[in-house]
């Protein structure tokens, strides 16, 4: 083997190595973005495939044996086919909902053969994308003579009762949590000096509340009309739910319109929506469509 041949072999080896690295990088990039399914993803995959084909072309221009050409052409072709399969499957790849975002699912419920007097059962799955947050409340309390304990209604539900911290700026107090009533969010505190004034601070891990509303749709699917307003009251679902940080909850929904209520013959639609129960002045709402077809 001459020095020239040796250099050509080295060059061919490095081209092959480059090809393998590029191919692996392209496949990794596909795997990294797998499941997104949007235009950018497809462009990236296409670029990956193009890089792979380009590296094959570069390799063909190098000087090496035909056997190696054959092996790498076959390898590159298989890699390209794999990318094409991923490209085609990408738009239908399973979607993984983000853990750190609120979401609902399913987005649509279809009910067939429905009529008054019948029952249809569904659900809405709600995810709280927030982590658990510490809530701090301050209260000014003056106890009456002989009064050493009192209840306070908290703004938000408590996630962990054992983690509640109560302090007082009155050194004579030894505040402790006596009881907690979850439905009313009332917490009973004891250990206070009677006939005295203090500012108490309550720190607790709060759960987040979501408001669930059954309402007429903002817009209907083609062929559907908004459900009669009276029938809306026969959709049974909890008005509010409380979720801890990153918790997911299935909330049952029952459609049970009595026989004497008219809902019309046409297919109709209503929405079950989920919104933060304390949204502020600007908020977002996620809607689940219910599409009802008659008998």
């Amino acid at each position, binding site marked *: 083997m001459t020095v020239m041949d040796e250099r050509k072999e080295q060059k061919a080896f490095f081209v092959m190595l480059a090809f393998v690295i590029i191919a692996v990088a392209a496949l990794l990039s596909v795997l990294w973005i797998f499941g997104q399914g949007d235009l950018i993803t497809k462009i990236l995959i296409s670029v990956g495939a193009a890089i792979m084909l380009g590296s094959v072309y570069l390799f063909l221009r190098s000087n090496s044996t035909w056997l190696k050409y054959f092996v790498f052409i076959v390898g590159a072709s298989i890699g390209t086919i794999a990318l094409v399969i991923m490209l085609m499957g990408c738009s*239908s*790849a399973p979607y993984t909902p983000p853990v750190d975002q609120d*979401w*609902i699912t*399913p*987005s649509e419920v279809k009910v067939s*053969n429905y009529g008054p007097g*019948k029952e249809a059962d569904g659900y809405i799955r709600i995810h709280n994308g927030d982590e658990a947050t510490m809530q701090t409340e301050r209260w000014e309390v003056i106890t009456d003579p002989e009064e050493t304990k009192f209840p306070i209604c908290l703004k938000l539900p408590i996630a962990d009762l054992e983690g509640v911290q109560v302090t007082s700026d009155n050194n004579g107090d030894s505040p402790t949590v006596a009881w907690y009533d979850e439905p009313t969010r009332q917490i009973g505190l004891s250990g206070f000096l009677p006939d005295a004034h203090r500012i108490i601070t309550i720190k607790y891990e709060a759960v987040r509340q979501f408001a669930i509303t059954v309402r007429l749709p903002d817009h209907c699917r083609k062929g559907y009309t908004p459900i009669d307003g009276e029938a809306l009251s026969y959709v049974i679902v909890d008005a509010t739910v409380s979720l801890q940080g990153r918790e997911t909850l299935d909330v049952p929904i029952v459609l049970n319109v009595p026989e004497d209520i008219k809902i019309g013959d046409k297919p109709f639609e209503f929405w079950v929506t989920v919104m933060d129960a304390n949204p502020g002045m600007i908020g*977002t709402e996620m809607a689940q469509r219910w599409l009802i077809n008659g008998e």
Partner: protein
Amino acid sequence: MKYFVSILLALVMMLALTFPALAATTADVTVTYTPQYIAIADNVTSYDFGSVAASANYSTSTTYVGITNTSSVQTDITIAVTGDTWTGGTAHTHSDTAEPGADTVAMWANRGGSWGTGDVIVKYASPNYIYENCPATTNFNYGIMIGTPTSTTDGIEKANTVRVSAAAG
């Protein structure tokens, strides 16, 4: 042959994933679900226009509110106010035709453009789209503008809530 098998495999995968995930019956009523996710959130919770004059327009930037949309499907997104009146003192009526009047407020929204071009009336009833056919996992921004009443009964602060709603498109 390989191409044919690959294409066939991909088609089978797509069909399998679009098939209803769950089916349940109660009597002869059939309930079916499609496993898609609706996920939107915003990055601000309020805006204070401050002290305003009568018969004037006040606006945020058209990118004031950032909407993070990670829904797995195309969505139709509407914008509305949740109250037909603005509360506080003598309530102001919210005008669904965007015509300010005595104790009557108008509101518009604009999705990241320029005010005056593509403005959307923010209504209480029959909300308008802020983004129809919004592609899956597509974020956007919007701003709001109010048209203040021509005259007011009192100078007490008024408030309403702006709600952006997403449903599968």
